[in-house]
């Protein structure tokens, strides 16, 4: 599954300053592995030492927070847009 990933500014140092990437993955877990292969080091910013998504990073698939879907098991389809957004904002 090829999906479009929106990279937040703080992580663009891992992506040659690219704000979007095309990436493969059947779900969020696989996407993270693929991202890390393309951009070594990026996964450690998004996941803690036990591999869980950090609590201050939110993932959205087609604008829906994955916590309303199946979390990191959320299935991805061709053409989906995955947005990675720092959680601390607003209010």
């Amino acid at each position, binding site marked *: 599954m090829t999906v479009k990933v929106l990279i937040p500014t*703080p992580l663009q140092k891992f992506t040659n300053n690219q704000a979007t990437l095309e990436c493969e993955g059947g779900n969020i877990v696989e996407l993270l592995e693929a991202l890390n292969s393309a951009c070594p080091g990026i996964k450690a910013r998004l996941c803690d030492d036990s591999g869980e998504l950090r609590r201050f990073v939110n993932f959205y698939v087609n604008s829906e927070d994955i916590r309303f879907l199946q979390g990191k098991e959320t299935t991805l389809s061709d053409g989906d847009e995955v947005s990675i957004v720092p959680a601390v904002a*607003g*209010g």
Partner: protein
Amino acid sequence: MTQAIDRPQAKAPSTGSNFTALRCKECGEVYDLGAKHVCEDVCFGPLEVVYDYDAIRRQVTRDSIARGPKSIWRYKAFLPVATDTPIDVGTGMTPLLKTNRLARRLGLKSLYIKNDAVNMPTLSFKDRVVSVALTRAQELGFSTVSCASTGNLANSTAAIAAHAGLDCCVFIPSDLEAGKVLGTLIYGPTVMAVKGNYDQVNRLCSEVANTHGWGFVNINLRPYYSEGSKTLGYEVAEQLGWQLPDHVVAPLASGSLFTKIHKGFQEFVKVGLVDDKPVRFSGAQAEGCSPIAQAFAEGRDFISPVKPNTIAKSIAIGNPADGVYALELARKTNGNIAAVTDAEIIEGMKLLAETEGIFTETAGGTTIAVLKKLAEAGKINPDETTVAYITGNGLKTQEAVHGSIGEPLTLEPKLDSFERALERARTLNRLEWQQVSV
């Protein structure tokens, strides 16, 4: 009598800069004092401003603060701005009202209302955070400021940007109350009404934040912005005669205001302006958007986001950035977090208006309704000095109470018509009057 705001006299005392760095609240990583809000290099945790409290202790006394401007800038030594001429539009030093009738109604002996429904210039607590954020935005060289808002913040950012001569673009959910939209448009900003809820607006703004070189007050300027809420703690301590209350009840949206009131109290203790004492922190949410109250009730230490559905739009944040910190604070101070229905929120607005003459918006109705609920459940000790924070003005959310407060009696300009009207007023409940000529 209204006190004129004389800008030269209102100038904040020259205290130099007491803020030294930004530091991650989670992992402690230190950053420079730029426009950034999350721990980019490690964990994405929130960044907080670091202060030199020894320097502050040397600079301020109760007297020096009391001699300062009648605005938040009397506490400038504790705020993250360097200039001696911050944007001072008379924000802060709102009344702390000792209630009699409301206290009696709730069975409390010492209940105060901190009334930011009359904060200046836009009638909500947001003027505090925006005054700080836009002052800092100017220091950092921004010429355009922006925000993701549930309404009050849009009002405030647009108004104070206009005063400061900054370009402004605000983002709001498209279903906001008319008063909040109009009360933004009048200042001439670009208003982006996003088809979605606040959390969706916020996500969009997070994606936009770094693309146009704008200062988003509650995104890339958030560490500075959020510090403005500390002044709600400082003012209450000063207005209580330089002492802390026993119990605070405040609304919870992102959770930031709640935690910053606590930080304000702690800083006053740290520099010796007030004696330390335990202060209980209780938070108020609407049932239709109560992710923090749900986590509190279920004993969870994480927040599960929700999709808001409540009339309390100004606090309808389903994915609260500081939710976990608000949760921790309520628990560690032996406070509570409770939620109330929309019907109870309207009753809360009416109760405050009818007993104390304060017309608050839905967020204030939420706070009063939760205060009532906690008092009735014995979760507020009647002897505690309790402060309820009213953060916004009811004139902005008139839709919420339409149909719940009755109509005026319409009469002919004749004496017998008046007598019939008076009889009707005395014999019927106001909600039964209807809008009819008598």
